[in-house]
């Protein structure tokens, strides 16, 4: 079973992501912001990280940069799931090392398709 780290400061979003991914057979670990995710990633590896962008303490771009510094997450797919849709933000995501940029709200079936595609 593949494991996914789902990062969002919104409890309702975490619930929606967990509901969708658990239903598709993934093991989901939740983190409330980038800093919490970073701490969880120090003790455990994940097959994919799905993170929000705008969060307190550490945002999605910051989390992506930090994870990419670690050998354990050098090639792990990191998807940013956010309301932000500007090209400037997407370019920043690419530069930070993200694998993809998903604009909220997500369609559950499409999200699962994309995750299946990027998880090797």
């Amino acid at each position, binding site marked *: 079973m593949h494991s996914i780290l789902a990062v969002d400061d919104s409890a309702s979003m975490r619930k929606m992501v967990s509901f969708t991914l658990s239903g598709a057979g993934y093991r989901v670990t939740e983190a409330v912001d980038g800093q919490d995710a970073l701490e969880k990633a120090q003790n455990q590896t994940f097959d994919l990280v799905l993170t929000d962008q705008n969060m307190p303490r550490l945002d999605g771009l910051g989390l992506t940069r930090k994870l990419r510094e670690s050998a354990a997450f050098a090639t792990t797919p990191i998807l940013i799931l*956010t309301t932000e849709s500007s090209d400037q933000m*997407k370019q920043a995501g*690419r530069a930070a090392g993200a694998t993809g940029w998903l604009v909220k709200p997500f369609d559950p079936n499409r999200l699962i398709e994309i995750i299946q595609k990027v998880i090797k």
Partner: protein
Amino acid sequence: MPNSQPSVSLPVTAVADLQDSLLIVMNDLQRLGGLLDHATENLMDRFSSANVALAHMGSDIHPELPTVRQSLQLAVTELQFHDMASQLLVHTDKILKACAYKLAEEAMGMDEDELPAPSADLQPPRPNPVTQSEMDAGSIELF
């Protein structure tokens, strides 16, 4: 150096009224945020309960179950309204707060014993993070 910017003067009472109005709107938005939080929490609990109940039912006895499960799953897109609404409220609150501080600073000056506003409150807010106007699923881009 003379200020070349055109300016208008307002009676202090008008400025005070404007500030009161801004404060009322900010309080109303805060209340709206609380209502949304409360409603969403209940909605999520009921959504989870329905999902658990459905999981315990067998499709062989209830042939309509796969359709019901699929409908529930598709509702996930619309149920993300809370996250977007909350971000919009936070952004709007920042704009209103910046207006209130600016108004006070320009019209009334700062009292000697008054603490300056936090610098973040005086900065023009960054672009609105929520540009969506519908709950259609957003775009996906793989790099």
